[in-house]
């Protein structure tokens, strides 16, 4: 794979996010389906997920650093990051607006919290996917 350290780092972030946070949303969906509405019950699962994700990220980056010599990001890496971020922010904004709408409609807090969290997650996934597209396809 002819990829820089930065591109490999994006792959690690994407895979860890999809696996760990994707797992969290699956568990949260099951809990919501069973009628669990207390947010602290979700907070515990979420905390475990975040710790797990940090561990996966660290392990992934250490493995890549051993295989590929790490380097500072250059102008292309930064431009790709900025462009991907500017093209994925709309997802988070949409989620925030949907969350506000949910508050107006008096939806349960657990739904609003997860709507906001899901939009943050999807926006981050879209950003990482766009970064990989720009690395491979060019811009």
């Amino acid at each position, binding site marked *: 794979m002819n990829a*820089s350290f*930065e591109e490999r780092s994006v792959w690690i972030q994407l895979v860890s996010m999809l696996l760990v946070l994707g797992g969290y949303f699956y568990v949260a969906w099951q809990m919501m389906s069973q009628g669990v509405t207390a947010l602290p019950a979700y907070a515990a699962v979420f905390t475990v997920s975040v710790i797990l994700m940090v561990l996966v990220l660290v392990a992934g980056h250490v493995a890549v650093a051993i295989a590929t010599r790490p*380097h500072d990001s*250059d*102008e*292309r*890496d930064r431009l790709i990051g900025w462009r991907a971020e500017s093209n994925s922010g709309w997802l988070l904004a949409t989620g925030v607006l949907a969350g506000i709408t949910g508050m107006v409609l008096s939806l349960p807090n657990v739904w609003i919290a997860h709507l906001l969290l899901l939009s943050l997650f999807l926006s981050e996934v879209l950003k990482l996917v766009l970064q990989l597209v720009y*690395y491979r*396809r*060019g811009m």
Partner: protein
Amino acid sequence: MKPTKVSNQIRTLRFHHGEMTQQQLAARVGVTRQTVNAIEAGKYSPSLEVAFLIARVFDKPLEEVFQFGTAAE
């Protein structure tokens, strides 16, 4: 795919400068080898600063290294 309108002679110039590798050029310019590769392949248009630095490495004027629009037209 060649999304940029900027073409270049970097590959030829590297060859005529002692078969300089992309890694060697990248180290002298201060970017990654993958970025030099992307510039050569026309997948990325470098900043003016990097373009001038590349031209300086080959001791050529900028327009002998980079051309605008010639490849796409």
